[in-house]
């Protein structure tokens, strides 16, 4: 992407923090809510300081600038505070709530999909719900069965929700800025394994529009649509395959809802082959969604079966060798591509 904006290296985590800071500066109605996002609430020596800044330190440093009225530590009551974020969004604030791990969605899903996401439709268009729910996804750090899921497929399924899922520091910043400025309910999926990833991030406050996929690598032989951390894994696979003379086009949808159908279809029209790489469980997933899109609208382009590389239909195992087998690897991606060449 050619751009005149100055950039510097930031981690994915720092990019998220920067987007939050910019959004909070530009709009006083933006508030943050979540468990220990500052931490140490009502501890004498931490009045204007944070104890944690979130479990991964992503919200660290914000309470010092914006104070505890805009950086709200919450009790462990996901339905309560995420529902409150929805109610606040319907009445004039722009809350950014943190659901610490996506696996906890079962504690608050009614407030997300049934209250927040449906409110505008059920009220005949006479309401809006500009709330962002940031959450961590992904296996890879042995966080085990209840802290390692993906499940963005569930949110992509739900009408009224936008599903945003950055794979690089620059995308994290730009997409989060757009998410906070957006007038709808946005689920923002941060991959815990990517927080330390470094990359060029533009200065300034420009958002990245939703529904615009990013071609992370050009190639003529096969289209690989990859989501979140699977972009990195697919780029590694593409390197291996390039050495064998197979040029992979790696497309990162960046937002699953809305989905940039055109970029995917245009690529398949060129390559005639599609592999979808998705760390979520395989059934009724983002992977099957993209496959079904192409099996319909891109059918005439296809020269080979559509292949999916996904996590298995199992919970996430704890033991490191099992977890490594669970997550789609560059080797598995490359092997799958070879099958359809």
């Amino acid at each position, binding site marked *: 992407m050619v751009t005149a904006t100055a950039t510097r290296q930031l981690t994915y985590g720092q990019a998220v923090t920067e987007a939050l800071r910019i959004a909070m500066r530009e709009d006083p109605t933006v508030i943050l809510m979540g468990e220990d996002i500052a931490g140490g609430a009502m501890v004498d020596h931490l009045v204007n300081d944070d104890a944690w800044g979130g479990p991964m330190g992503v919200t660290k440093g914000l309470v010092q600038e914006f104070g505890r009225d805009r950086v709200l530590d919450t*009790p462990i009551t996901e339905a309560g505070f*995420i529902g409150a974020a929805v*109610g606040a969004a*319907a*009445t004039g*604030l722009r809350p950014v709530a943190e659901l610490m791990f996506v696996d906890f969605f079962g504690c608050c899903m009614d407030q997300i999909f*049934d209250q927040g996401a449906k409110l505008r*439709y059920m009220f005949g268009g006479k309401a809006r719900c500009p709330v962002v729910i940031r959450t961590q996804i992904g296996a890879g750090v042995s966080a085990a069965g209840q802290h390692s899921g993906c499940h963005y497929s569930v949110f992509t399924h739900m009408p009224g929700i936008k599903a945003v899922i950055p794979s690089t520091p620059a995308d994290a910043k730009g997409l989060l800025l757009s998410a906070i400025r957006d007038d709808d309910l946005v689920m923002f999926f941060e991959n815990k394994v990517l927080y330390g990833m470094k990359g060029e991030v533009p200065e300034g406050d420009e958002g990245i529009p939703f529904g615009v996929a990013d071609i992370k690598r050009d190639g003529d032989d096969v289209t690989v649509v990859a989501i979140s951390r699977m972009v990195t894994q697919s780029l590694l696979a593409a390197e291996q395959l390039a050495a064998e003379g197979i040029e992979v086009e790696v497309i990162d949808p960046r937002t699953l809802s*809305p989905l940039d159908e055109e970029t995917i279809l245009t690529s398949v029209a060129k390559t005639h082959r599609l592999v979808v790489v998705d760390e979520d469980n395989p059934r009724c997933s983002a992977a099957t969604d993209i496959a079904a899109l192409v099996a319909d609208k891109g059918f005439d382009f296809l020269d080979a079966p559509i292949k999916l590389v996904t996590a298995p239909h199992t919970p996430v195992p704890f033991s490191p060798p099992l977890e490594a087998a669970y997550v789609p690897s560059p080797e598995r991606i490359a092997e799958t591509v070879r099958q359809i060449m």
Partner: protein
Amino acid sequence: MSSPSTAIEPAALDREQLLTMYERMVEIRTFEDLAGKNFAAGLVPGFVHLYAGEEAVAVGVCAHLTDRDYITSTHRGHGHCIAKGVDIPGMVAELMGKSTGVCKGKGGSMHIADVEKGMLGANGIVGGGIPLACGAALTAKTLGTGGVAVCFFGDGASNQGTFHEGLNLAAIWKLPVVFVCENNGYAESTPVGYHCAASDIANRASAYEIPGVVVDGFDLFAVHETAAEAIGRARRGDGPTLIEAKTYRYYGHFQGDMITYRTEEELNRYRQRDPIVAVKGYLLAHGLADEAGIDAIDARVTEKLDAAWVAAKAAAFPAVEETLTDVYVTY
């Protein structure tokens, strides 16, 4: 927790306020009676849950609110909507699924809303509105609007997790919110004495160290006074209150309910203390209105409601393309 207050003299209320409240109660009763009748006639699709009998609660509470204040409601939401000033013809049209409905026919009885009027929606999820009310109160507190939020819910809802989470959150953040539990004795066919381990739901306030008050939900003046205190407290920044209004629904849980779980006597006991008749009696006894004046109000309401039904019946259904709109602001 204070004990049920009854027969309070409405010292703080002038004649006009009293007549307005009376009219609102009659509007709700008439609305519900007609909704039931037209449902039976097949004119109202889906489910309807009628509020008749509980009018004093919505009206006594909402009398203290303006458009900058918010309420959340329940599946039994018509009374709350009317008390909060939602357009009645628009509500009738909504029940029928017409394009002139307040939600363009897309919501129906269980999702009537008007955010401009501070009405954040009836709600098909028992307990679903409680966190939303906390959020509306958080907005008021954060932006310093001076507004409050009132959260209506039933005895059945007081067992939901959201009740606990919402009250704790409101208490620790001192949110300007008033929780109004309408204990009508039943959750569907299940008596409160079975489903709820607390004899008085208001007692549950002690788990959050906030005030909890039982009030006679058939006594408009008692509700009005109790609500005044709680809403005043919220507006002053002193935090939430839990009010339990002991009330009763005249109809079944929803239209079609055979009501095998309660007796005729029980119903009649309540009907004998009808809250609307009580207010009318007060107005007459204190010379604030005469029979003719009351009749004029009743007639005005009937006329308004009849006209609303005529208009709703004549109105068009929404165009089929409406199925696909209003999901997102932008997409």
